[in-house]
């Protein structure tokens, strides 16, 4: 098991680590697991607690359970098959003792752009920042957002997410939401993030990346996030030196993080995460 308490916090703009005198409780085991993966070159998995400061709601808890795994030389479509197998095993096991919602053996799949277009009649990749902001104002009083990634997130959460009640894989996220995933050029020539999210019961359950292995690009993204943090008046995060140095030996891999509490919510039909 990788340490939950490390010297570095998450660099993500909208993730806040719980800070202790001795270090940071990890918002996900991602950084530590990638260091281990770079060292051993082996596929790994882990079930552990993750901590996110200030996240409290019917679908959020400061401490929650995350199942995360990385597969060396793996593609995202292979990872989808992992997930399908895992979910059907969990449904089978849970069904012995509980009433469990049925989940299709094979998940539906749709690109982010296709789903976005269906609801908003606009391309999330090619449209300008101003077009997206105008859309946000029209649709849901979402005028409080300024960053492109945030506007897109809010629009997606308002209209698309609640519709994704059946097991669905959403692929090819906007490039500005790549986080630690690689980017690629899609069939229409737009740069997209090479990642997918798994939805069930109108909730995001898991998040998968074709993992970025380029140290320079990672450093650039870290610095970009710190710049945004400064602009927002948030504390900057020290670049994770261990992760940056691990990137040089990180093998090509795909990784996925699954929120266990939310999966149980969706399968057991609970509406409050504290009940799982």
């Amino acid at each position, binding site marked *: 098991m990788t340490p939950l308490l490390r010297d570095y916090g998450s660099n*993500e*703009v*909208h*993730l806040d680590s719980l800070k202790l005198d001795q270090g940071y409780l990890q918002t996900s085991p991602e950084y530590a697991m990638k260091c281990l993966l770079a060292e051993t070159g082996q596929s790994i998995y882990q079930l552990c607690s993750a901590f996110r400061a*200030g*996240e*409290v*709601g*019917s*679908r*959020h808890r400061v401490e929650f359970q995350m199942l995360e795994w990385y597969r060396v030389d793996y593609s995202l479509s292979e990872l989808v098959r992992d997930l399908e197998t895992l979910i059907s095993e969990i449904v089978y096991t849970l069904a012995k003792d509980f009433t469990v919602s049925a989940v299709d053996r094979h998940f539906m799949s749709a690109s982010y752009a296709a789903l976005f277009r269906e609801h908003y009649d606009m391309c999330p990749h090619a449209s300008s920042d101003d077009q997206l902001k105008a859309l946000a104002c029209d649709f*849901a*009083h*979402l005028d*409080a*957002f300024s*960053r492109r*990634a*945030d506007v897109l*997130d*809010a629009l*997606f*959460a308002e209209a698309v*997410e609640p519709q994704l009640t059946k097991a669905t894989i959403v692929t090819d996220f906007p490039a500005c*939401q790549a*986080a630690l995933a690689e980017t690629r050029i899609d069939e229409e020539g737009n740069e997209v993030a090479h990642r997918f*999210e798994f939805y069930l019961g109108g909730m*995001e359950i898991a*998040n998968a990346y074709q993992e970025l292995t380029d140290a320079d690009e990672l450093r650039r993204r870290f610095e970009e996030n710190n710049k945004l943090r400064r602009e927002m008046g948030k504390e900057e995060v020290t670049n994770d030196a261990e992760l940056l140095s691990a990137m040089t030996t990180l093998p090509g891999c795909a990784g996925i993080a699954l929120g266990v509490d939310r999966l149980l919510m969706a399968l057991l039909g609970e509406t409050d995460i504290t009940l799982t």
Partner: protein
Amino acid sequence: MASYSTNEFKSGLKVMLEGDPCSIVENEFVKPGKGQAFNRVKLKNLKTGRVWERTFKSGESLEGADVMDYDMEYLYTDGEYWHFMKTDGSYEQLAADQAAVEDCINWLKETEKFTVTLWNDVPISVTPPNFVELEVVETDPGLKGDTAQGGSKPATLSTGAVVKVPLFINIGEVVRVDTRTSEYQNRVKQ
């Protein structure tokens, strides 16, 4: 007045929005993965009774509203204002205008106790008790013996409210009515 941040929003909290006092009905924390958190909030405008849906960035705040509910006895109207008296022993009297009493004007019975909502010490709405007993002042003549059958007719009550009552109810009788639905409950024996 203090201001409240989105993480302090809870149902029943009174806040100011667009110049009107509101009561928070529902507050949902939404955070897309690594995206910016926001709150989907339902607020009831206490002046109009309308429910608004608004989205706030998490961490935004709203000013609190100085809103208080009092039990007050309805006294009389002078045609322009409706006068109420506190029942807490202070006998303090307050005048509510047309807009404040509009929604319950047909239930205003003298000496009956109402909940009066004050914003900055001025009445903005009046809520009747869930059930009131009122005299029938106008209705078609009752039908003898027809106490079991369905059938109903309109009856005007002493406060002006018109409700459907069973056919056997006569002028001068007192009926109990649910003010939330305007439905007849039963006849009250005097």
